[in-house]
């Protein structure tokens, strides 16, 4: 079997700060093939953005270790100039807030043209035509007019479309979307997600879709990585994750997905408390202060990420049989009863 297009192995990212070393990402591994989507899910501060920025080489003052392979190139060994040339052309990224992510002083067209012309030796006129094509492609009406508009003249959804047009202008093979819909209202969210899926099909792009909402990734993802406090809690195919999840944190996320009835969620399913501070990560399993199943081992030992089925990995001390029993008897009825 050949390695997937993007392969991340034992990635660690830490920031030296005044309060000590912040280990934002610990031993995270995953792979994404062309045409495939990986969803990364987790609460605020779980290390989703840091992981993606580490791939893009956009972290300042961070220490990265482990391996990141993009189409056979080791990104951690490549020079910063080599990585720069890959950015935009081979890997691109879209961000949560398209208003602040676009330069306020340049028109949308200028920004797309700039992105295109760094990697292609073409005249401004050719690049402009390309920019209009891209705007058309992402569903912006009258693209030949809107190309000269400034970001603040676009609506939120249109801005994110323009951002996507800019990111895809050089036909990148990897697209990282960091919470692309969080700043948008629900109907627009769905449109943007549809757009990403359609474009992915057309371009056969590898996509990493980051969100804190399992519902967003459920339809689009082939695989899902659930992160907690900088570590992988569970990593599985989307199907396994929704039909046979084994990590108590994943159960909590499933339980907190929007429900059809208004009944309060089962007590077991609610994730109590708040995410840990990355400066004072709880010992053992970082989730233990909030986990209803925590035991002595949880408080002292970091649970290893172990394969419980082909392609399905879980980091939890509860024995596999016991986890499956809890899922079948306690969690699943509650989760599914709520739908």
């Amino acid at each position, binding site marked *: 079997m050949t390695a997937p297009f993007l392969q991340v192995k034992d990635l660690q990212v830490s920031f030296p700060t005044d309060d000590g070393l912040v280990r934002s990402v610990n031993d995270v591994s995953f792979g994404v093939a062309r045409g495939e989507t990986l969803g990364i899910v987790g609460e605020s501060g779980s290390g989703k953005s840091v992981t993606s920025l580490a791939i893009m080489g*956009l972290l300042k003052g961070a220490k990265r270790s482990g391996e990141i392979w993009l189409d056979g190139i080791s990104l951690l060994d490549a020079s910063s100039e080599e990585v720069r040339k*890959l*950015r935009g*052309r081979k890997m*691109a*990224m879209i*961000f949560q807030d398209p208003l*602040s992510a676009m330069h306020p*002083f340049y028109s949308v067209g200028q920004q797309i043209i700039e992105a295109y012309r760094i990697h292609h030796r073409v005249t401004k006129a050719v690049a402009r035509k390309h920019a209009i094509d891209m705007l058309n492609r992402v569903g912006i009406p009258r693209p030949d007019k809107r190309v000269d508009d400034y970001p603040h003249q676009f609506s939120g959804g249109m801005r994110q479309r323009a951002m996507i047009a800019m990111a895809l202008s050089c036909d990148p093979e990897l697209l990282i979307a960091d919470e692309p819909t969080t700043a948008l209202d629900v109907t627009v969210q769905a449109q943007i997600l549809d757009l990403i899926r359609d474009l992915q099909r057309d371009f056969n792009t590898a996509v990493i879709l980051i969100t804190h909402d399992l519902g967003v990734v459920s339809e689009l993802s082939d695989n899902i990585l659930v992160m907690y406090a900088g570590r992988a809690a569970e990593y599985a195919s989307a199907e396994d994750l929704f039909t046979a999840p084994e990590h108590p944190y994943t159960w909590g996320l499933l339980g907190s997905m929007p429900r059809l009835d208004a009944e309060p969620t089962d007590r077991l399913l609610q994730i109590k408390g708040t995410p840990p501070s990355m400066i004072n990560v709880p010992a053992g399993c970082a989730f233990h202060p909030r986990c209803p199943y925590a035991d002595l081992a949880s408080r002292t030992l970091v649970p290893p990420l172990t394969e419980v089925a082909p392609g399905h990995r879980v980091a939890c001390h509860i024995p596999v049989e016991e986890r499956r029993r809890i899922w079948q008897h306690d969690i699943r009825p509650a989760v599914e009863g709520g739908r």
Partner: protein
Amino acid sequence: MAGFVIRRALGAVLLLVVTSMVTFAIFFVVPRLAGQTVDQLAAQYVGKDPSQAEIEATKVKLGLDQPITVQYGRFVKGIVAGREYSFGPSTEYCPPPCFGYSFKTQRPVWPDLVDRMEVTASLAFGASVLWLLAGVSIGVLSALRKGSFFDRAAMITALAGVSLPIFFTGLLSLALFLPTGVSYVSITDDPLAWAKNLLLPWITLAFLYAALYARLTRAGMLETMGEDYIRTARAKGLPERIVVTRHALRATLTPILTVFGLDIGLLLGGAVLTESTFSLPGIGRYAIDAINNNDLPQVLGVTMLAAFFIVVANLIVDLLYAVADPRVRLS
């Protein structure tokens, strides 16, 4: 955009009108409210030890015996269209902008101000080029190398620059480099001598402002470099050089150019300290002398001129800002 320009221009005109009212009030109304009699007021426009006859003549000449509104009307008319003063039997026409006649020289104020303007403008523009180049480049380098030796050295120097008074740095530099002092030579007479003589005043004045601008630029760059759109620029694969110039510097410079325009406007009204320190016959020196001689028409002229420059600088800055920032232009 056209509407925007017209709105701002009208605003500036209005501001000038208000300025003229305030200036008029300060010179002609407030003293009366403070209890001065018309005679006392008129006496100030005659010179030292006036006789009663002179006072009476001045009252008529300046129209101080007229109602305030008429006086203000004449004041404004003098500025925009010129006015006539009657000296006993003869009348004399004071061409616009007329601020009256100096007590001391008996000449109209305006032509003297124009003469002085060349000195002040030479000083302001030369210094501003220096400080803009030095301040912005030092600020950018400091921000990019935050915490480095260069950054610390530059910021300590900048702190000295903003805290040392001009007359100190000016006199020190004169003593060190040009003990004979400077004498102004007009640029039209001898450009080389013009620049040679102004070099020291330029550097002295620029040192103060460069320090200010270096700090402004550094702070602005540090803030801008943390913006999301800088991350986007890098994510596109732009070389760092372009990220810094086209993206970060462009956003940082816009507010700095605003400050720059206002500083120039302020300086054109007279670089009082620099001109005094280097004995340059500019607007600032003129103002000081006018105040020392209690030459009210001169003081009034300088005041209106300085206000004019500030209002115009404000207008230009507003318009430039709209050109630079589409969010202003299109809202």
